[in-house]
């Protein structure tokens, strides 16, 4: 049985979020340093493709107007 008794999604957890953000930032800095230029490009392209697909799906569903692509 789940015993969760609190959430971080409320005011008052700034210190915990700061630590979580630091952890993630340091991890990404470490991994980014290990990437070759071609790996960085490939990663950026993959993310861009995902972003455009996601926005296009949202537009097709009528949640975002088409001008989002040009804003």
């Amino acid at each position, binding site marked *: *049985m*789940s*015993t*969760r*008794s*609190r*959430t*971080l*999604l*409320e*005011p*008052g957890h700034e210190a915990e*979020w700061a630590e*979580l*953000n630091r*952890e*993630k930032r340091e*991890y*990404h800095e470490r*991994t*980014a340093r*290990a*990437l070759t230029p071609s*790996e960085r490009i490939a*990663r*950026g392209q*993959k*993310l861009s493709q*995902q*972003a*455009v*697909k*996601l*926005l296009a*799906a*949202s537009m*097709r*569903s009528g*949640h*975002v*107007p088409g001008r*989002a692509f040009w*804003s």
Partner: protein
Amino acid sequence: MSQDEPSGPDLDGVVADANAVGLHYVVIGGFAVMANGFLRATKDSDLLVPDGSETDEAILRFFDRIEARRLRDGKILTRGEVAGAEHLRVRSRHGIIDVMRGGLPPLDYDTVAKDAIDIEIGSQRALVAGLRSIVGFKRLAGRPQDRRDLEELESFHGELPVDPIPGLDT
């Protein structure tokens, strides 16, 4: 692909595997901002999940399927570590994933899921946080990136919907 290979976030894979194991979730974070009209970079996938033992079991199946290990120490998480955790951060074959339990209304799971947009990601259906919920999460977090997200979303959508957040506005 090895989970140690820094491949970046793969939302299609996250959605496909979360759906495959029956995990209920809403995509929040950077990908949700993109789905609401502001294209920007993100380094991970963020999921909001409900409370409860059924969710705990689904999270365990999900983590097993995506070869998840806790980011900070590489540990494979146990049932006891998943149950009761308000936040879980793992690295996986789909990149870094943050799994969060809902907060107090309006940032609880039910409210966020009700406001979410239902769209196709890859070949799968997924709930993605709607504008009203994103505004709430961003106002609560208040980091420079969050403020920038709100500015960009406001420039696109006009005046943003704002729900009072207990402890922040009241």
